[in-house]
């Protein structure tokens, strides 16, 4: 067994086990903490796929941003931590059929419709940021700028929400 196999199985087990814990955990904060390991494991698998930038962004956005926000939200919400989550299945047969169809369709598309590109592992570049940067500022520059505007709008919106509440408090 090679080193990379060992690392892959480590991250794969971390991802799958913690994802299972997220959905079965009865305590919502535990689910949030377990989500950390899921994100971390997925980041590790991205690294093994050679997508270094995506892996770091995964850590930065999901662990450093979304997960922290989620935990803040849970912790600051009154009495949410003691709520027992209902995790037992109520309608097992419809659920199995629905998930089965969706999963089957996904697998079929992935297996038969995708053009798989064979990449020579020896010749791949050490980093993806140069190619990514070039693409973002040439072919996808419009989308990139639009996303920037979208984020700016979201930021202004958040600021205006916060401001309105302070004014209401003063009245």
């Amino acid at each position: 067994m090679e080193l990379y196999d060992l690392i892959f199985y480590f991250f794969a087990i971390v991802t799958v086990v913690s994802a299972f814990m997220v959905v079965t955990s009865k305590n919502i904060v535990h689910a949030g903490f377990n989500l950390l390991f899921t994100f971390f494991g997925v980041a590790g698998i991205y690294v093994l796929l050679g997508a270094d930038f995506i892996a770091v962004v995964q850590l930065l956005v999901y662990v450093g941003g979304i997960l922290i926000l989620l935990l803040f939200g849970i912790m600051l919400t009154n009495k949410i931590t003691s709520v027992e989550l209902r995790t037992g299945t109520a309608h097992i047969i419809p659920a199995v059929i629905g998930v089965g169809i969706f999963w089957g369709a996904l697998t079929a598309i992935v297996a038969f419709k995708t053009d798989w590109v064979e990449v020579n592992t020896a010749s791949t570049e050490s980093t993806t940021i140069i190619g990514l940067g070039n693409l973002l500022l040439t072919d996808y520059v419009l989308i990139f700028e639009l996303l920037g505007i979208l984020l700016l709008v979201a930021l202004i919106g958040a600021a205006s929400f916060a401001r309105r509440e302070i004014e209401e408090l003063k009245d």
Partner: protein
Amino acid sequence: MYDFLVDLIGNEIIAAFISAALPVVFIVPFVIFGVLMERKVAGHMQDRLGPMRVGYHGILQTVADFFKLLQKEDIVADGIDKKFFNFAPYLVFAGSYAVYAALPFSSKYIGADIDLGIFYIIAVSGLVVAGILMAGWTSNNKYSLYGALRSAAQIVSYEIPTALIILSMVMLTGTLSLAEMSEMQTAYFWNWNIFGGAEWSFTKLLLIPFMFAGFLLFYISSLAEVNRTPFDMPEAESELVGGYHTEYSGIKFSMFFLAEYANMFAVSALVSVLFFGGYHSPIGYVGNTLGLEALIPFEQVFWFAAKGIFFVFVQMWLRWTLPRVRVDQLMTICWKYLIPYAFLNLLIIGIITLI
């Protein structure tokens, strides 16, 4: 280093483990030395002597403390969330340790010479925040929870000015790799980024004031990121007992301690790589003068550690000089002063880089 170990041992897995474990060999002695230094600096700044009993002038004090901490009972109070409570200190330490993977200790040793070095360092600090939140919440104690929430809010907010200054340095150097960034500032100290980088031109003079401003902004926000005074709100003793590690004792408490000192050195090393030449000597190498090439990597480790420890000393100096700020002042400093100045600095450095 990893390739050398593979040749030496012949097994990839063992070589990878040894190569990954090397920063521990640095961190543990550094923490033992750092804690003593903290107490000695504190003592002398307050006109005391500091610890004097164990060894000559108390140099073995931390070693004794370490054994004391190891022997202490591992207290786990009732009503806490045992699984995550036990895990949190290790997660916090893992987050700070992960930063060391991308720090270039010398031209011959860097844990992982990834091209995303500094971006990776910003990203993994998220693990520390998650670990602190975990420690605070699972302690089931209001002081711990307040400490953890303050700490997380503080780190998340101060990441923005830090990232903006790092972005301006990335624009200047054109690389995200810390090893490459250090290599650009080679030879003498006037080539350091704080003196405008290695390129001799008109822009070098223009850059100097903005580099100093960037350094100050970065240093202030890095102080907040490692929860040091004047920004140590998360563990403000007078209001929060011990902050997020109130409930911890023995070895788990020492993991938090280890993580705190490891973090202090990591941000100081980052300051030295970004602005002060990283592992490069300011005055040339003895190895070059004597014609001994093999000596250079060791000298580089020395300079890297010396610069890092100097900035750790400045952190301690500030700790015993400045009073603690309030929570609202802390957020005001970040959002109303540091972030606009960092944006302005980014803009100006960008324009100068384009000239």
